[in-house]
């Protein structure tokens, strides 16, 4: 491979950090040419998101000694990205972000290989994520962070002393910005708090009560949300609102203006309409650069040990003066995601039966019904045909998972989608889970499904410790004997 021969002087500056010993370094640091070469050859880093943070991250990582990078993003380039997503040009508008970003960085930094993935993060098999040493998150959504966090924490295994197994730890570095503010954090599952342990750091968005929108609007945002959430469905029966369709946006704007005039409320503008409807977070190049750089540095520190890693949450605030604060958050010992898993005890005869459930489903999600049924909300009727494993997942007080798919040691036991897989795995439903798991008395299974969070369906992944009654005791005795 010709391009793997890199003249030493290209890493003139980085070599000082990687080749020389130091006293303020990480516990695993072994300086030398070998370390530098290992970072190049073996370290595999995934960047999640190719937006404002993702573009910076790819550049920073490519210039921090990493050669094997991959990037995943489902979005296409828009004009409003150009004020900060510096890898994109006007002529790129409409193309997939991941692909253009990967191409641009490879053009400029020779020897670097970046594989783009233009798809949703949920589209990838869980095992895809296990292929990387470190996952770096440059996302603007809580749901996406939560998902990747659950995936990475899902690989974590605990030994019999309840200590995390070193080789199953998948570190993450997470960045986020809003205007002049941002955060960078290091998540080492099982060691530092995971995203879910400190979910309270991201309070749910304030939603306006529907009665305010319908009856007593007081500001421009109320008028806009009335047009967007109520009026749209009244007029366009059944047609879904698309925030990316400018015609739809203009319609909402003009309806919001009418409503504002009716109530004598000032301040409805097209720009505000977009901001409210799309929940646009203001973003500038400098903050993205700062936070990404901090994340890239932490990635380098985790991978090489060349300095002590951030412990564990950095906040940056440039609104007034400049404040950088590092807080050491602690793990939530009962965390569903990074803990040792929720224990489910089953009889060996329990089958992996499917539960047919009828919920308000799609009727609920179409706006008009929300208004009509507003006070009945929360009433979801479930028709149960069989009380079996998958059903237990829905009923479990902590899990509340519906539409569950189940995997065990990489093997699909039951998949809801795609249809081909569903068909292939359907026959498993009538088989005992104990048999499906190869008669292992106690093991981890992974379940993906949807759960309700703040009245919103989100995909999630949970790790379950399944133990079979009766033979469980035998195992414990075995283990006690071995210890």
């Amino acid at each position, binding site marked *: 491979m010709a391009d793997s021969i890199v003249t030493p002087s290209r890493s003139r500056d980085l070599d000082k950090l990687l080749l020389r010993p130091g006293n303020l370094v990480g516990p695993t640091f072994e300086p030398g040419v070998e370390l530098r070469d290992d970072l190049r050859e073996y370290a595999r880093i995934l960047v999640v998101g190719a937006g404002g943070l993702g573009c910076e991250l790819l550049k920073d990582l490519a*210039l921090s000694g990493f050669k094997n990078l991959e990037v995943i993003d489902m979005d296409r380039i828009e004009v409003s990205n150009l*004020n900060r997503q510096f890898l994109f040009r006007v002529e790129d508008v409409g193309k997939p972000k991941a692909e253009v970003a990967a191409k641009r960085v490879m053009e400029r930094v020779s020897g670097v290989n970046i594989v783009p993935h233009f798809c949703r993060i949920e589209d990838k098999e869980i095992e895809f994520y296990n292929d990387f040493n470190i996952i770096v998150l440059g996302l603007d959504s809580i749901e996406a962070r939560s998902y990747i966090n659950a995936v990475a924490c899902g690989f974590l295994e605990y030994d019999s002393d309840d200590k995390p197994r070193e080789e199953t730890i998948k570190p993450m570095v997470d960045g986020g910005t809003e205007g002049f503010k941002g955060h960078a954090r290091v998540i080492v599952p099982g060691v530092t708090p995971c995203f879910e342990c400190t979910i309270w750091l991201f309070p749910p968005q304030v939603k306006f009560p529907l009665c305010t929108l319908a009856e007593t609007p007081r500001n421009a945002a109320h008028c806009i949300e009335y047009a967007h959430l109520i009026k749209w469905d009244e007029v366009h029966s059944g047609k879904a609102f698309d925030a990316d369709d400018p015609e739809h946006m203009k319609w909402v704007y003009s309806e919001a203006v009418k409503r504002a005039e009716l109530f004598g409320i000032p301040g409805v503008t097209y720009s505000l309409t977009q901001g409210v409807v799309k929940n646009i977070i203001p973003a500038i190049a400098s903050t993205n650069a700062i936070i990404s750089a901090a994340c890239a540095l932490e990635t380098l520190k985790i991978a090489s040990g060349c300095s002590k890693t951030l412990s564990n949450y950095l906040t940056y605030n*440039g609104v007034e003066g400049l404040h950088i604060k590092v807080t050491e958050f602690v793990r939530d010992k009962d965390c569903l995601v990074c803990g040792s898993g929720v224990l489910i005890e089953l009889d060996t005869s329990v089958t992996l039966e499917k539960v047919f459930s009828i919920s308000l489903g799609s009727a609920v999600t179409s706006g008009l019904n929300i208004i009509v049924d507003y006070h009945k909300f929360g009433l979801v009727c479930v028709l149960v045909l069989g009380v079996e494993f998958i059903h237990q997942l829905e009923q479990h007080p902590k899990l509340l998972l519906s539409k569950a798919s189940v995997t065990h040691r990489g093997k699909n036991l039951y998949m809801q989608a795609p249809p081909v897989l569903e068909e292939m795995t359907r026959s498993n439903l009538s088989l005992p889970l104990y048999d499906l798991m190869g008669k292992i008395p106690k093991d981890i299974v992974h379940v993906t499904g949807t759960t309700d969070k703040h009245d919103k369906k989100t995909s999630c992944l949970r790790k379950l410790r399944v133990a079979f009654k009766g033979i469980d005791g035998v195992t414990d005795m075995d283990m006690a004997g071995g210890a």
Partner: protein
Amino acid sequence: MAEPKTKYDRQLRIWGEQGQAALEKASVCLLNCGPTGSETLKNLVLGGIGSITVIDGSKVELGDLGNNFMLDESCVGQSKAKSVCAFLQELNDAVKAKFIEEYPEKLIETNPSFFSQFTLVVATQLVEDSMVKLDRICRDANVMLIFARSYGLAGLVRISLKEHTVIESKPDHFLDDLRLNNPWPELRKFAETFDLNVPDPVAHKHTPYVVILIKMAEEWTKAHGGSLPSTREEKKEFKELLKSKMIAMDEDNYKEAIEASFKVFAPRGISSDLRQIINDSHAEVNSNSSDFWVMVAALKEFIANEGDGEAPLEGSIPDMTSSTEHYVNLQKIYQAKAEADFIAIELRVRNIQKKLGREPGSIPKAMIKSFCKNARKLKVCRYRLIEDEFNSPSISELQKYLTDEDYSVAVGFYILLRAVDRFAANYNSFPGEFDGAMDEDISRLKTAAVSVLSDLGCNGSTLTEDLINEMCRFGAAELHAVAALIGGIASQEVIKVLSPS
């Protein structure tokens, strides 16, 4: 070319059209275009800065490709300034980009008047001696200056300007301006039109909390010899009183009133920060005074006269549970008062301008309006000359930080960044820049650090061996990620000092 309004949408939501206009008017000069300088400019070019001039005398080496994204293979051997400039231009064709192949140190020595053409200079990777000289040049020419430096895993950003006055500082947590502790007659009169004991539950739960608090405060003062709740007991009692007025559990307006009751207890009058500004000697205006200080002078008069001890009213109210009609009426009352205060201030501004012999219309109405709206949040920052920082350090401050666990490493690097420059002045290279002489460099750097500490008046203090070793290990390396971080901070500070004052 993309529509600028769409392209800049995400940043216009932060600094508005005015901020964008200031950015587009600015001409920025960059000294040294290594990664720290290049990354600083990249962020500014993306944001639509008016023009950039890149100054660097060096040629691109292979090692530069390892830390600077603006350079690729084809640049090796070429002028670094030219190569970086060409890449930056590619990012945004609305920016005027040019370069000069010259060493900044030489320009500072031989052509100081060169810098006066710029709005702002970003000086990266300069050593102490050049910093001090450039600082003096820019200060005399009234050019803003920002220093940025990346050094191993350490870095520094230093702003140097005479004075930075901010009208729209947009602090994070700032109390809204409702005057619940001191309502003016029109607001009082509006509150009087409500009956808190109205039996209709719909009317009761749609009475805005502003009205509830004004009426209840009045009731309280009548019963307490004219004074508002001040002790903890009284405050608690006041909240209980509010609670007792509720006629149903779901009355959000009363819950809001209880939550906002501290606004009634807040002291009247202006904050100590604002008092300091109106008492600043610059508020005694003369023919050299800037528009900002002319407006401050007007504000000072206003507070002493029509303002009755208060700054002009901001005029906006937060959202609160209310019927639309009451809310809109309340909004109108606040806006009318804000408008009246603005007119009073404007009149005073025009009179002061006349006295100073200036064109009375020269400060735009919109600027005075913005000044009034933000009067409570005005900010004045002044920066010392680098020379003064070096020659008359605040010893007590330094001593405090040197011994503080949270700050000692940062201050240690601050001292070491100065020590490496002394080292370089003596030995023509930075400590650890070349392999082989590590031990010698460590002991030499230690000596340099001791001399810096002693010049700073911190004779008893020492830096840890670990820190000195670490600085030598860095060997003046400019790591890309550190440069991107320092450059990011520098560009953010540039944007902040350029935004309209």
